[in-house]
């Protein structure tokens, strides 16, 4: 499965009220291309911090459901975040890693995720639900459930590469922030 298809399945499986934090590079660009809504917080820089931003949101807005979309390169930069998330264990957080074993946005250089079982790391860190999925069907099934028993961790094995004519986030960073905040806390 392509990462683009995986993001599409995830977005289609959500209820439509979740807040989504998407990581730097292709993941934000693909999410933007699939579904550009104010509830998306597109990260442009600060690679590695998607799950930390997700944790801060989950702790501050316990009544909202938070979805983090990041890559294997990103989570490997900030594995300490999994310890903090496991410790505080916000039930409203779903942490999804799109794992293509590469830094795809910078040319496909290998990461080391092919020898790391990220699901086991998440489980050991204290996530209440962890899944590693490889097909769209499995992914569809797993996305429906986690919110009742989070924090959940889903590792999705995807292929390298994007689609042709992938869009670029057209909103300015301040616009991304302002419209996201309007949709979260109404200011």
């Amino acid at each position, binding site marked *: 499965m392509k990462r683009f298809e995986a993001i599409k399945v995830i977005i289609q499986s959500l209820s439509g009220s979740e807040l989504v*934090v998407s990581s730097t590079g292709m993941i934000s660009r693909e999410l933007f291309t699939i579904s550009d809504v104010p509830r998306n*917080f597109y*990260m*442009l*820089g*600060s690679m*590695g*911090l*998607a*799950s*930390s*931003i*997700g*944790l*801060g*949101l*989950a*702790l*501050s*807005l316990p009544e*909202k459901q938070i979805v983090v979309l990041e890559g294997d390169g990103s989570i490997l930069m*900030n594995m*300490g*975040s999994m*310890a*903090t998330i496991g410790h*505080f264990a916000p039930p409203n957080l779903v942490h999804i890693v799109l794992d293509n074993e590469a830094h795809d946005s910078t040319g496909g250089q290998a990461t080391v995720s092919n020898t790391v079982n990220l699901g086991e790391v998440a489980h050991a860190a204290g996530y209440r639900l962890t899944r590693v999925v490889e097909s769209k069907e499995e992914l569809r099934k797993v996305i429906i459930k986690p919110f009742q028993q989070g924090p959940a961790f889903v590792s999705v094995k995807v292929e390298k590469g994007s689609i042709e004519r992938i869009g670029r986030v057209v909103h300015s*960073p*301040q616009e*991304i*922030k302002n419209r*996201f*905040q309007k949709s*979260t*806390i109404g*200011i």
Partner: protein
Amino acid sequence: MTTVDFCSMLNAQGFNFATGVPCSIFKDIILYLSSHSDIPYIPATREDEALGIATGAYLGGKKPVVFMQNSGLGSVINPLSSLNMLYRIPILLLISWRGYRGKDAPEHLIMGKVTTKLLKDIGVPVQVITKDNPEAAILASIRQMEERQIPAAAVLKAGIIQ
């Protein structure tokens, strides 16, 4: 100023979320916050993680403060420049000043020399907290955060908050 007065002042100014990585210079502040629920403190594994958590909290409607030793400043230059300054996300940074005037353990001397300069170079306004001005320094930082919607740093030397 006492630890309790300092924390009450932060509380009175509306801060309601704290995270960071400790320094002995503000050990009592973090101990105090950890045992009182007015400003919950989330211990982060690294300073950049703390900035990410605080950013999420801000987006979720909180008013966050981040604690770090100036040694951790090296870890937050990227998130400060490509997240907080870029998106205009105001967060109060309370940064301890180890290596002040070249008097400290060797690992603090180089960063001690450039701490305020590094912050200013990436556009983060800096206040230095002295014995006489803790409240005024924090108020000045808050003013800058609110007027410009950017993070502001208050730098704290040893022996001022006890």
